[in-house]
C-alpha cells in the first residue's frame, strides 16, 4: 500500500449514480491490473454505492480521503 501515486484520475463530482460507476469501469478497463486510479466522488449516494460495486468487481480501494464535500479514492485495478 505504499504506491499511492495514481496512473490515471477521474473527477466525478456532480456525476450521478450509476453513471459515475460506468465512467470508472470504462477507465479501469483501459488500465493494467495493479495500476492505481484516483477518483473524486461526491458524498452521499455515490459514496454509498460506488465503493461497494467496485469491491464486487474485485477492485481494491487503497485509500479514502475526505475533502471539502467530496472524497478522494485510490482504486487499484483487479488482478
Amino acid at each position, binding site marked *: 500500500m505504499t504506491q499511492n501515486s495514481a496512473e490515471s484520475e477521474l473527477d466525478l463530482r456532480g456525476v450521478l449514480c450509476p453513471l459515475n460507476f460506468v465512467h470508472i469501469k470504462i477507465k479501469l478497463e483501459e488500465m493494467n491490473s495493479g495500476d492505481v486510479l484516483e477518483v473524486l466522488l461526491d458524498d452521499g449516494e455515490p*459514496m*454509498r454505492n460506488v*465503493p*461497494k*460495486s467496485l*469491491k464486487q468487481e474485485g477492485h*481494491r*480501494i487503497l*485509500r*479514502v480521503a475526505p475533502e471539502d464535500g467530496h472524497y478522494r479514492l485510490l482504486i487499484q485495478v483487479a488482478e
Partner: protein
Amino acid sequence: MEGLKAELRKESRRLKLNFDELKSGGFIKQTQKDLFTVRLRCPGGRVTADKMRTAAAIADKYGRGEVHITVRQSVEVPYVNYIHFDAVAEELRAVNWSVASCGARVRVPTACAGCSYNPNGLVDTQGICAEVDRRYFGTPTGHHKFKMSFSGCPIDCFRTREMDLGFQGMVEPKLLEDLCNGCQLCVKGCEDKALRMEGDLPVRDDSLCVGCGDCVKVCPVDAMVVARRGWLARVGGRHGKHPLFAYEVANFLTDDQVYALIETTVDWYRHHGEGRERIGAVIGRIGLNTYLDDVVRPLGVEIVAQADQRRKYWAGGNLYDSK
C-alpha cells in the same frame, strides 16, 4: 361455493375427470360460464423455458393465446373450458408440472432471486422456497389461505410483512479491529446510520442495524465480516380488504428452524383459528404473546419478544392508528 363444488363433482364424474385435481384449487372459476383460469405452480417464480413453452402451448390450444402473470409469481392460463381439464393436466404432467392451489391451504411460496445472482441477496431464497413448496404446498389449514414469502435482504422486495409467515435474510456484522484501516466506507455506506466512528474504529448500534450487510460488502480490507447469517421471521401479515402488517418474532433462524416454525405455526393456526380467520386475526384476538409462548419459545430460537426490538424495521405511514 357449495353449489359450485357439487356441480363440479357431478361434472367430473360425468366426464371421468379427477375430482381431487379440481378440488386442489388450481382451476379458478371465471365470470364466463364454463370457463376457468388455470393457475400454474411456480414456486419463487422460477420457471424453466420448457415449462413456459408448455404454458404457451396450453394457452394456444385451450385458452385464448394469452397468459396472466400474477402478483404472486404464478403464470395463469385464462379462458380454459372445464371439459379440457384432464387434457391440460396431462400436458402439465409431461413436463413434471402441476396446477397451484386456492382455498384454505398453504399456497405456493414466493421468493426473490436471492443471493445466486442479485448483489443485495444475503441468503438462498430460491433454494429454500423450492424446498418449502415441496414440503408444505397444499397443506389444509382448516380456516383460510396461508401465504409465505422469502426475501433475500432487508429491502424486502417480497413483502414478508404482508405474509401469514414471511422470512427475510439478515446478517450480523462484526468488526475485526486489527484489520480495520479506519477508511469509514462502512459508515458512509450504512443507510440506517447504525455505524459511527469512535476514535479510529466504526462502532455499531444494534438498535438501528437491520442486518443488510452493506458494511460487509463495502469494506475494502475485509475487516467487517459476517458473524451470523440467517432468517428474520415475520408472522401475521396479510393484504386484501383489511391489511395487517406482520410482527417480527425471531432472528437468525437456520433453514431447519424455518421449517420447524412453519410446521408449528400452521399447526397452531389450525387449532386456534375460528372460521375463516387469517392467522393475523387469530393473533389479534388471543394475543401475540400467546403465539410467542406456544410456538416460538419452544423452538429455542432467538426470539423477538419486545415491541421496541421491532421499532427499527418500520418507518410510519398510515397504520390506521386510532390513537
